């Protein structure tokens, strides 16, 4: 793996910012803007909405994966973002979508800084367990802080959000809002993770070594945690906007498992994996819903099979196959071009 630690490379020496996978992912998210204008089918609208929200939330997991940390904290930050939006629009009548989106990003991102100072020292399984406990705590706090969060009833009856004074209240407009939030999140995530990719690669491979070579690992970790929180907050905004309700059950601790699954099953090596994972698994969940009580089991079986058969996720396997078909070896041993299968990792 790449142990070279560039302290700060001037931008012109850096190879092109986005990889092929980033462009594909961004193009797909961009294409979803077409759906609200062309389709009136509520199921298409609702499915697209759910997939985009899931993918946006899973970006929080993806970002932390750059540092080899598996985060269960996504629902916590989604809750902070979602409740911030609900409170602003209900208590202060702030309904402008730009103001709300900024708040939904900044509030969780700010909360993440002191939290990160506490827990980013932890690694591996300890980080997994602590973030898991954190989501449990946030869930309990939502219940206990009744006067602010509405307790177990949540906050119901938000007004519709507005863009330039125009209300975005019906199905296509709600999806349009989600598309916009997802697009912003994907741009932010890809720019952020690609800009600092050498630093992240160094920390992921060996953070002690990186630090001893003069890389301020804590700074990048804190930034990543904060951006991951902000992006999760945007997903929380989209979810709350879709349901017109900020409800504790939307941010259940076990939902973090889903977001991790999307990222890993899709392929944790690139942002495209997160999107494809969300697309496949949300559709699968919807399809399995027809088989009633069998559905969780089928979902579990799918996870096992994909994990065992497709190491490196769906995207990793597919792009590996494509490279093989084209007669090239995938350019993945090079940290600079790191976009393919990244399944095998040192102990």
């Amino acid at each position, binding site marked *: 793996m790449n142990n070279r630690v560039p302290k700060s490379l001037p931008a012109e020496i850096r190879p092109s910012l986005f990889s092929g996978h980033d462009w594909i992912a961004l193009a797909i998210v961009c294409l979803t803007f077409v759906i609200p204008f062309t389709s009136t089918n509520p199921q298409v609208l*609702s*499915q697209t909405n759910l997939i985009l929200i899931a993918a946006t939330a899973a970006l929080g997991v993806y970002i932390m994966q750059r540092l080899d940390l598996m985060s269960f904290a996504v629902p916590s930050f989604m809750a902070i973002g979602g409740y911030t939006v609900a409170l602003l629009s209900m208590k202060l009548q702030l309904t402008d979508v730009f103001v709300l989106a900024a708040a939904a990003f900044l509030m969780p991102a700010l909360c993440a800084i002191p939290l990160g100072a506490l827990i980013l020292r932890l690694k591996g399984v300890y980080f997994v367990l602590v973030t898991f406990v954190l989501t449990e705590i946030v869930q309990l706090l939502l219940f206990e802080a009744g006067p602010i969060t509405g307790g*177990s009833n949540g906050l119901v009856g938000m007004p519709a959000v507005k863009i330039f004074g125009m209300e975005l209240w019906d199905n296509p407009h709600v999806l349009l809002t989600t598309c916009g939030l997802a697009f912003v999140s994907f741009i932010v995530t890809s720019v952020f993770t690609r800009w600092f990719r050498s630093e992240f690669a160094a920390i992921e491979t060996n953070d002690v070594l990186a630090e001893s070579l003069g890389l301020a690992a804590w700074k990048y970790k804190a930034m990543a945690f904060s951006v991951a929180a902000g992006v999760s907050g945007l997903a929380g905004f989209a979810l709350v906007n*879709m349901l017109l*309700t900020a409800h504790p*059950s939307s941010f259940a601790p076990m939902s973090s498992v889903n977001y991790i699954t999307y990222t890993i099953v899709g392929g944790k090596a690139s942002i495209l994996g997160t999107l494809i994972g969300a697309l496949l698994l949300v559709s699968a969940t919807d399809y399995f819903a027809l088989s009633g*009580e069998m559905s969780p089991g089928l979902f579990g079986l799918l996870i096992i099979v994909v994990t065992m058969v497709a190491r490196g996720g769906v995207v990793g396997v597919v792009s590996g196959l494509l490279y093989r078909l084209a007669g090239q070896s995938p350019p993945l041993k090079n940290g600079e071009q790191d976009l393919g299968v990244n399944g095998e990792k040192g102990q």
Partner: protein
Amino acid sequence: MTIGLGRLVCGSLLASAGFVGAVSACELKIGVPAVLSGPAAQWGIALRGATEFVAKETMEEKRLVINGVACTVSVKSIDSKYSAEGAASATSALAAEGIKVIIGPVGSPEVTGFKPVATRNRMVAMVNSFAKNSIGPEWPTVFHIGPGPSGWAAPIIDVGLQRYKFKTAAIVAPNDQGGTDIASVNADIFKQRGVTVTEEYYQRGTTNFAPIVTRIMASNAEALDLASSPAGDAGIIVKQIRQAGFTGPIFRLGGPGTDEIARVAGGLDILKDFLWYEPVYMDDNMRALEQKYEKLMGSVRPENSDFFRWTFAARMMIKAIQAAGTIDNAEKIAAAMRTLPVEDEHIGKGYWIGQKFFGINQEMSYPFAIGVIQGGVKQPLIRAEAVSEK
């Protein structure tokens, strides 16, 4: 012979032409977002069974005739997974098929996710859920199949007070909407009757209730209300509080499930003195309805006794559609529903209520029943009259 055959062919052609005409003119599709997976599946199965039964009944007996054409009625049910997202997604899928008439969903989180989507897609609905905001003026086309504890807790507590002496009571429920909404309503009703109340909330997922039981014992409560604690949890609470030496009466003012509570607790002896809300009073009329279901559907009715309330609700919806004369204008159907009296051929007359509690008079109130176990022996159900707000 040939002429006869010709006539027959002609006749059937005409008939099918008429049928095709009818399909394009009046084909009612009822959407059912029902929980069909997980621990709450039995509730959704009762909802689905009742709606399918009413659909068949409507067609067989030509109960829905619009512009002189008997309508076909079909049911489309989708798993709403007992979550807000699940219900929102199921409702969107129903809306995708142009469905405007909804029966369901069952639980509080589902109804929370359902209402905004239903309102956006201009649907008319009959929902359940014991939440404090199940229905309301914000959702004018959403109706409630029957009251929560605000409607029936008072008469049950009165029966309890007649049979047992208690001045203090403890209410235990999970610390989420499904628990707090019901426990707080029950608490108010106990207080109105001069009973001092302590409320205990536990984290959903708790498996050992010994600490909660210790708190209840320390509060010197003489009666206990399990409110809407899930039957499995309620069973453990009963088992552990009897082990701790509690001898007072136990209420279950939050829905059925007494059989399961008894199984987990270890038998009727452990329940000892127990009172609960039963959605319907089983009498000859109800048995006639059961038989009708068997005859029409060819199988036994769904086990969950909310089947009956869903049947009454679905029939009410059909009547409203008939009165409105449209199968796809939700506002008109809702307006027609408000003017109709609450009445069903099997359970009899009821009332529209809800103004006092929800701020909107769109809740059907029918007679119900009170279940009693005394000294470990199941007593016959007590019939309770429909609650009225007048």
